[in-house]
């Protein structure tokens, strides 16, 4: 039974990894063929870095992800504090609306924002591009920040805040000294989640970007529309490498922390 489980797990992992593996192999392929490996080359990597559209959209993606995640973390943290203090009914209404971008299919969120932007564009000289992208990203990021923070309030001892005031803190310093450290893990994980979602998003960006400003996933999409573009293989390999390194570093750090705690 145990052996069977291991074999099954191996098969599923094979299924999950084989496409990525193939992409990596063919990123070093001399010819444009997708089936025959004719020789080793780094040409596609060179071409990738010479491709201005890719580089500029990569820069764009990072700028938007950084800005959107920072703004949504601030906005979301304040929101969570306020929502936590609300009475039951308004709280439920706000949380339900907040959940919409998470529950709704991405395409619906994207399309709805596009409708709004089209409406504004016609009346206020708004152009599809950086601003619309940033607004869209903040909009789908904030709910994740709020959802990461809210449970921390529930886990927190409700008397902490009072105790701090009892010991001489004014409401503001009580918040900074006691409440903020308690919800900080939620703030951090909310920020990281917002950042990764922003980096990764395609669907919503697709409907809210303009020709002046695109994100990397949108550029990738237009590349896949052309029949053969081996630069994508090279790009995938690099992204995969970066992800693997980040995750390994993250795991090593966590493992160290765990060992420290045990010691």
């Amino acid at each position, binding site marked *: 039974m145990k052996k069977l489980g291991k074999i099954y797990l191996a098969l599923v992992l094979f299924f*999950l990894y084989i496409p990525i593996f193939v992409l990596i192999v063919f990123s070093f392929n001399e010819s444009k063929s997708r089936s*025959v490996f004719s020789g080793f080359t780094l040409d596609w990597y060179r071409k990738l870095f010479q491709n201005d559209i890719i580089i500029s959209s990569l820069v764009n993606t990072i700028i938007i992800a950084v800005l959107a995640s920072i703004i949504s973390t601030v906005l979301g943290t304040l929101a969570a504090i*306020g929502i936590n*203090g609300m009475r039951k009914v308004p709280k439920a209404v*706000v949380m339900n609306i*907040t959940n919409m971008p998470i529950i709704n299919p991405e395409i*619906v969120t994207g399309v709805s924002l596009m409708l*709004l932007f089209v409406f504004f564009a016609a009346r206020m000289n708004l152009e599809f591009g950086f601003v619309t992208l940033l607004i869209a990203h903040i909009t789908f990021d*904030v709910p994740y920040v709020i959802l990461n923070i809210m449970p921390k309030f529930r886990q927190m001892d409700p008397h902490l805040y009072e105790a701090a005031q009892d010991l001489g803190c004014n409401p503001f310093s009580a918040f900074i000294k006691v409440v903020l450290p308690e919800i900080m893990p939620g703030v951090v994980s909310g920020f990281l989640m917002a950042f990764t979602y922003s980096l990764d998003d395609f669907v919503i960006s697709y409907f809210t970007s303009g020709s002046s400003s695109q994100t990397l996933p949108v550029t990738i999409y237009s590349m896949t529309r052309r029949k053969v573009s081996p630069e994508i293989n090279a790009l995938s390999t690099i992204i995969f490498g970066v992800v693997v390194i980040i995750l390994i570093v993250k795991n090593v750090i966590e493992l160290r922390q765990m060992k420290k705690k045990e010691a």
Partner: protein
Amino acid sequence: MKTKWVSAPYLVWMTVFIAVPLLMIAVFAFTSNDGGFTIKNIQDVGQYANIFFRSIWLSVIATAICLVMAYPVSFILSRMEKHRQATMLMIVMLPMWMNFLLRTYAWMTLLGNNGVINHLLGLIGIGPLKLINTSGAVVLGMVYNYLPFMILPLYSVMVKIDKSVIEAASDLGCGSFATLFRVIVPLSLPGITSGITMVFVPAISTFIISRMLGGGSNLLIGDLIEMQFLGNAYNPHLGAAISLVLMVIILVIMTVMNQFSPDDQVLI
């Protein structure tokens, strides 16, 4: 203390960028180009019934395959030793960190008429088979992309099932199957329902997978919407109506799913 005022900026943001846009979908769905009220858009959605059925059908199949595939994976993971669990989970989730488009593109490479699989089949004298641009390829793309969405919620529920509860079932006369259906499945029900929604919702609304792996002949609801907004068929009113119907379908299915999910179950 009046902490609720600090959420004011967000409340404004939420209203303008979440609530109003969704209302606009509803408004667009029920108005015509000149701004007058109409139900024509909704009626027109009926013309695309076949696309709706195909979308529902393919995403139901994909969700079912994901459930069947993911269930043993999650169970095996949840029974591993703690420190190995973390590593294995990371390995299972790692492909998710690659952009969705790249993962789908990878399958284009594999399934293409001159792709790797057909090349390998050719070596043993089979094919070339028509793999890409089929509805099978679309389902495969859905399963591949969304399988981790099924594994994760199942795993997080199963890991809370105490080993001794499973032993107790065995102690009380359950063989493997009885243990599975009388204890493990009921206890993992919350994970099953959230896994199903997490796979079904993106599957039924995708337009990438169908476009990249399904060719032109396997249009889904997502493609239909996209075409109304960014395609040649430009008609945001019809697009809004289709979106609205899609939201209703999803709402209905999620309500049904919630019926199966026990509400006040506390795992000891």
